[in-house]
């Protein structure tokens, strides 16, 4: 939906924003059903995390029809809001409004780390989830072939080569809204050579994992400066790779840059399936329409 924000492939990656920002984000999801539905059980992962790079200053969660909301941390410590609506209802509205302060990277430049550091049993065990195939990211022959193409010389330095993989995706894949859907898998993206951020993130996860780099999916938002008035935004997705001795580091293959102060992280997981922003089940005839409205504004 934001093609004008795609940097041209000729320029080298721009310098990351180091300026601290305060952002206000509103994310509205509205389901309209075919007739009345009932017994709706849902989970929402919409609350931004608080860590060294960002502080979630305010978070408000609104539901219509109203229902009691509880929250719990999931396996990856993401904050999950849980709610159910039992009585018949014809639409469901979930809105999250948050204020987030983002800060520049405090850890300094990323050190050079060779492959041997990744091969330790401790890392393999600790990051098992992020080294193996998951629902959206298969590690079959087609992904392997693409991984070799992206990194013909093989893995030498974790971060430099991760960036190289990202640049390979950015160069060879076209950002095309509506060319894929929410269920598109990484292997399919390789065939199509196009997609949106969710697809590029999945693809990059596949390529990184093939090379033995622990990589995880990040769901969140980012401040889009070149937005048209009234343009509808969606939530964003990028990835993080694990660098031994440094930690997780975010990279956005869609925009060919590391995640900086413009990025707001909500949740991490193996892929989209782990951390869909709103998910659940209900009984009824089905969904007639889903409307998603996201707005990210800088307030200071």
């Amino acid at each position, binding site marked *: 939906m934001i093609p004008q924000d795609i940097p041209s492939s000729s320029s080298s990656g721009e310098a990351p924003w180091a300026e601290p920002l305060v952002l206000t984000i509103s994310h509205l999801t509205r389901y309209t059903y075919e007739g009345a539905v009932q017994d709706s059980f849902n989970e929402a992962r919409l609350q931004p995390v608080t860590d060294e790079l960002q502080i979630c200053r305010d978070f408000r969660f609104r539901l219509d029809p109203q229902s009691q909301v509880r929250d719990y941390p999931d396996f990856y410590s993401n904050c999950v809001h849980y709610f159910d609506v039992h009585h018949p209802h014809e639409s469901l509205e979930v809105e999250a409004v948050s204020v987030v302060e983002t800060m520049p990277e405090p850890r300094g430049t990323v050190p050079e780390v060779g492959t041997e550091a990744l091969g330790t049993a401790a890392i393999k065990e600790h990051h098992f989830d992020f080294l193996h195939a998951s629902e959206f990211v298969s590690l079959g022959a087609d992904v392997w072939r693409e991984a070799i193409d992206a990194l013909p010389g093989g893995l030498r330095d974790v971060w430099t080569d991760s960036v190289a993989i990202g640049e390979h995706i950015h160069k060879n894949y076209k950002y095309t809204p509506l060319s894929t859907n929410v269920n598109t898998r990484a292997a399919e993206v390789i065939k199509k050579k196009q997609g949106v951020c969710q697809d590029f993130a999945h693809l990059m996860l596949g390529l990184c994992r093939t090379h033995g780099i622990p990589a995880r999916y990040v769901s969140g938002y980012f401040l889009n400066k070149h937005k048209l008035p009234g343009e509808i935004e969606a939530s964003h997705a990028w990835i993080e790779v694990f660098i031994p001795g440094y930690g997780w580091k975010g990279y956005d293959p869609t925009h060919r840059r590391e995640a900086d102060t413009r990025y707001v992280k909500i949740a991490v997981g193996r892929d989209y399936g782990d951390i869909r922003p*709103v998910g659940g089940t209900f*009984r009824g005839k089905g969904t007639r329409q889903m409307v998603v409205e996201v707005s990210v504004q800088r307030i200071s």
Partner: protein
Amino acid sequence: MSDLSTIIPTAQKPISDRRDSQVMLSRVANSLYWMSRYIERAENMARLLDVNLQLMLDFADLNDQQLKEHWLPILCSAGDEETFFKLYDRADSESVTEFLTFREENPNSIISCLFTARENARQVRDQISLEMFEALNECYLFLKSKNSREIWQSGAHDFYEQIKKYSHLFQGLTSSTFTRGEGYEFINLGKFLERADKTTRILDIKYHILLPSVADVGGAVDAAQWQAILRSASALEAYRRFHVEDILPKKVAEFLIFSTTFPRSIRACLQHLDEDLHRLSGKERREYRSPEERAFGKLVSDLNFMTIDEIQNNGLHEFLQGIQTILDHLDDHIYQEYMYHPPVDMQAEILLHQQQMQQQQ
């Protein structure tokens, strides 16, 4: 929390106190209603046939055409002349009475009505008294036996007498053994709606019977026919109490339409219906909530102000047809309101869906 009353559970309310315990199934309501309607229908048919067979005795030398003219209106009033002519060529005393009594192909024959009434009673066997069911079952066994046809052939009067007695027995048992409640109201709705409808039809028959000649108007034949109408509605003695002298067409019509004291008059039946309808809906008297109920309510109050002269000027036949239409619509309304249960979309009720997922872009 120290207050004991918050810890000790309160005693369970007796089930009979709860409003839900009074609620009945639509299916039960439907069965009670039709059980009652069919019995009333069979009784009226028995009376009508009995009286007309006797009437025929006064006109011994009728030709085929005249016989047809006599019986056709009766067939028409039951609304079954099409089925009849598929089964018979000639409309004479024998064929018409057989068709209206024993033919199961005819859904309104006495045998069909009583079989259906019993079937409905069987479906709500647990809701009605043993005596009610036994009376109906006895009637059913009587009709199924060869004996019944023999009785009918040797003397139709005895046969129809028997049918009427079963109906009277059943209605009497209902009145003395059935619990008062919603179920009783449905039984009454069925009974009075059918009775009112049948009275309009009995009265309407005279409109169709052609007199042998114009000179016969007001003559002996005419009088005999009007008397037959009264007897068909079990109204002869009641009529005589009010009009001792002659049987005058206008007086007969007035009596069968307007009488407040004779329990088979249209007005009396409609007033019973009105009461039961309000008891059922729980609305105030004179409050009607659907177009069908409003049309019915208007008819009830019209009967309080109309005169027989007005009806005759506008046409008795049209007036009676109007009532039949209103009752038809009311029957429809009762069905829609209390008995019909829309088919459940099982798929929609059961099918589990995933909440649609939003793509991250």
